[in-house]
């Protein structure tokens, strides 16, 4: 019992983050080019406010993040996605 208590005490003092290792979802599916027309996938990479999710949060690699930002901007222009999402709705 004592051993168990000691271990928990040490954990409480430090900050532990149990995050899974992030990886690029597009690399996993082997996506060549991201199409701006499948907006439901793009919507997953936007925040609640409608902003584009940064790569360090979503884990998307540099190659795909560059395409993703352009695809989201095109989708906004063609009215697939909102520019700003308000919380009132």
């Amino acid at each position, binding site marked *: 019992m004592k051993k168990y208590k000691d271990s928990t005490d040490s954990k409480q003092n430090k900050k532990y983050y149990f995050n899974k290792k992030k990886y690029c979802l597009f690399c996993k599916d082997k996506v*060549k*080019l991201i199409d701006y027309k499948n907006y439901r996938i793009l919507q997953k990479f936007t925040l609640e406010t409608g902003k584009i999710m940064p790569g360090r949060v979503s884990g998307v690699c540099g*190659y795909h993040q560059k395409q993703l930002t352009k695809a989201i901007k095109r989708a*906004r*222009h*063609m*009215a*697939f996605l*909102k*520019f700003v999402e308000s919380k009132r709705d």
Partner: protein
Amino acid sequence: MKRKYEIGFLLNPESSDEEVKKIMDSVIGIIENAKGIVENIDEWGRRKLAYPIQKHNEGIYTFINTEVEGKAMAEVERRLKLSERVIRFIVFRLDDKLKKANRLTKKWHKSEKIAKKTKEVIEKTDSDEKFLDKKGDENEEI
């Protein structure tokens, strides 16, 4: 020099089927006059918009993939800009990114091959170990 392009345009929801066809034909006509190839036509039809444009909540979507020269594309853009029924349109090149993408796929193929080889090696060693273990057991029994 021919290049791959993608065109997309949004039409007024009040426009009739004939008007939709007229604009489609005019775009395709320009491309075919310049000896281009129409690869794919996607007609999505009426859809709800994410936000109102010119007080319209709906729109008619159409998408075209082509392979033409740049001069023809400039004319397509001009035509879409001038027509009143078109609310929004988008035109962009595709092939400049395809080269990079093809390079990436080569990398993926390489990594796949390496993964396959490592798997085979692991399986082989596992089977060999099992075989040895069985032999050992048999010897012990005897």
